[in-house]
């Protein structure tokens, strides 16, 4: 029996991709309409008391990310309480946690958590690559996003014999899942040959090891568990969550084969939920790069250290495997619009736990699912949320 004081009664997202014709505000509106439409018994918009807006790169990307106040106005909720939550790549996951705490505190009964990110209104060079010139002028110089994860791959390969094919197996699996997800940025399957032939972005990571730059938005509705039945007969409950931090720069890392922030966040979430890794049916984890997924599923306790690569190659994380990972296509195929990412992962798990994932549906045995993000300059923060169908 976990925490179970808060229910998810709605979840929705817009199809992810390079949405050049949609503004930040239009994407937010799309996610909001999707979440309203997802509520089985319907919901009055005026029932929403507060909202938390997850967005990470508001000012950098030229979108109006000054606080949370631009979103309620844009989506027709002008006047309600709104705050912006920014916590690196787990911004959406953390907004979910904070929304759940706002409900559990008794201050609010109905809370909207919405994540939105515009990643492609600037060119790659002006946008993501420009960070190579930001931060500390010497110690962070030359750091683009792959630089923050590729050193883990080099070391994981060195210590555990993880191979390029094992990294490729993550990409192939997630593209296969993404091909079945109408919301995914990439909906094509890839072969090992295509994977190996793709250009090297940052050795040892190839192009297919990396998530794309994706625009997107996603949202969930949280209510007090006692009131869930007003909105749906198939609610999903928040069983637990955890957040942990680690030193942000790569040279401050004590290990390059595990991510302490993930280990810490998972420990707290499992303890709060009264669950362990063996109780989880499926998980959406942070696969910004293929190596990240391998690290995650070891750090979350699904596999022993060093065993994630071979297990992925053997299909243990496929939809029919022991623990399906990233049935949505993951960040690799579905995309990684930072503020929206965590909430889109929760949306996928909400569909899966309710048996609504269509072609991607996996077998739900225990009714528990785990969502995870890691981010910060160099894996400096992680958030884990655990969802359950078990009623309080």
């Amino acid at each position, binding site marked *: 029996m976990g925490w179970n004081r808060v229910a998810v009664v709605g979840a929705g997202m817009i199809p992810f991709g390079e949405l050049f014709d949609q503004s930040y505000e239009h994407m937010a509106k799309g996610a909001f309409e999707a979440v309203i439409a997802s509520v089985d018994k319907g919901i009055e918009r005026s029932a929403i008391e507060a909202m938390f807006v997850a967005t990470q790169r508001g000012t950098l990307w030229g979108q109006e990310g000054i606080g949370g106040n631009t979103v309620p106005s844009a989506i027709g909720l002008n006047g309600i309480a709104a705050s912006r939550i920014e916590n690196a790549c787990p911004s959406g996951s953390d907004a979910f946690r904070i929304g759940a705490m706002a409900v559990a505190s008794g201050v609010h009964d109905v809370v909207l958590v919405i994540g939105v990110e515009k990643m492609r209104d600037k060119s790659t060079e002006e946008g993501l*690559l420009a960070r190579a010139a930001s931060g*500390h*002028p*010497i*110690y962070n110089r*030359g750091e683009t996003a792959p630089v923050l994860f*590729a050193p883990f791959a080099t070391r994981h390969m060195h210590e555990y014999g993880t191979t390029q094919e094992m990294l490729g197996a993550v990409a192939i699996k997630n593209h296969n899942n993404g091909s079945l997800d109408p919301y995914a940025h990439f909906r094509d399957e890839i072969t090992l040959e295509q994977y190996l032939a793709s250009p090297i972005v940052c*050795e040892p990571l190839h192009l297919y090891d990396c998530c794309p730059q994706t625009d997107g938005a996603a949202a969930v509705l949280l209510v007090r568990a006692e009131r869930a039945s007003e909105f749906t007969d198939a609610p999903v409950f928040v069983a637990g969550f955890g957040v942990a931090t680690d030193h942000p720069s790569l*040279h401050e*890392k004590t290990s390059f084969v595990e991510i302490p922030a993930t280990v810490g966040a998972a420990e707290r979430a499992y303890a709060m939920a009264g669950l362990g890794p063996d109780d989880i049916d499926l998980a959406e984890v942070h696969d910004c790069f293929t190596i990240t997924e391998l690290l995650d599923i070891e750090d979350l306790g699904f596999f022993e250290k060093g065993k994630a690569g071979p297990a992925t190659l053997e299909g243990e994380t496929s939809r029919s495997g022991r623990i399906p990972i990233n049935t949505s296509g993951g960040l690799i195929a579905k995309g990684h619009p930072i503020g929206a990412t965590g909430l889109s992962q929760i949306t996928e798990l909400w569909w899966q736990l309710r048996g609504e994932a269509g072609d991607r549906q996996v077998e739900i045995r225990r009714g528990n699912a785990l969502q995870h993000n890691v981010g910060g300059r160099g894996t400096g923060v992680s958030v884990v949320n655990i969802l359950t169908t078990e009623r309080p």
Partner: protein
Amino acid sequence: MDVAIAAVGAAAPSLRLRAEEVAGAWGGRARGALAVCAADEDVLTLGWLAATRALRAGAIDSTAVEGLWWATTTPPFADGPSSAYLAAALQLPASSTGALLTGSPHAGLDAIVTAADAVRAGRVTTALAIVSDAPVPGPGSALERRAGAGAVAYVLTAAGGHARLGELTTRSRPLLDRYRGASDAVLRDVYDPRLYRERIYLPEIGATVRAVDPAPTAWSLPDPDGRLARLMAKDLDLDIAPSADVYAAIGDAGAATTAIGAAAALREGGTVGFAAHGGGRSSALVIDADAAVPGAFDIPQQLAGGRSVTYTDALRARGLLEPSGEPIPMGVPPGGAGFVRGGEELLGLHGARCADCGVISTPPSVHPACVGCGGDDLGAVSLSRHGEVHTFVVNQTMPPPFVAPLPLVVIDLDDGARLMVQGAGDGSDLAIGDRVELEVRRYTIERGVPIYGYKAVKEA
């Protein structure tokens, strides 16, 4: 007071261009190898490397060096803290004195003589004289088939040693040889070669050389066109092997060439004459050695090697062939508070050691608390320059001003600190467990200002 040479060291940049490649582009013939600075090398990084090697060869602690006399025709800051940057990177005491000498290739000899004078006067007991140069020739100029780059450092001391600095002979005559104006990127070659030979080189340098008595057993002579030194050697019956070897290895390294030749000659006892010419002056200095000087024996190895590059690569490395497009500016401007706060710790490579748990946090300016235990009883330490590769990547996708491939290396330093720095070169030979050394390199030129930091270089 006698001034002795306690140790010497030299350095050459990492690229080599065959003179034939230059001739291939512009016609004609040329021979030999020319040392060319990679984009992350310049006179400061070469000078740092030569001085580091000299101090190591002589087992001399940099904190004992009381003055730095640095000569180069092209200081990285025409007006700015060139010497202070070099002194900080060498970890010289903040109280160290000295001067930056420039203006012509004659500056190399001036630095050694001026440093020696300071020792002789009792103003300092240990002085470092560094000569580093990397003349940038104009594309298609005669100079381009000869221009190289290199550096040498002399540690001078009043404490005695195997080599002593002797008499100085000098002559002055206002005649134009090389020329570089204040706004010129490249060195210009505007003189008449026949006139130069007949009216400057043979009479002026010849008179200086002839005036030295007793005659040295070998000479390190300037050789601006590859033939004049041999002509003078024939006329005056001189052994010019010390400088001829340097020209053959790295080309004409401006102010540094004959200073390197003289240092290399100190690998055995004897008397070497060291001549310099430039800016309308010719000078000769005599060095007497009764045994080998520490470091001298290594100089041929320090000049050898280098990666062969094409003429196009050399032009790009010299900054004469630039890509179009907007470079991405640094988040922190070079004169901004971030650099002021971190300048000394970056050049001196400082860490903060925790008194409670011993963990070293870097850089101190961004770590008011220990990364190991959170404690704040931190003491400044100078980090080891040696370590082992813990993990690394080679980034292939970089925006300007970065140039891919760019290796980034996480190093476990021998003192227990962990650092992530850029790797020198293309990273193709990197592996976990490799021994690497940290060398000062030029990271970038930001808004026209060179930015220096440390890079990992694989140990030989």
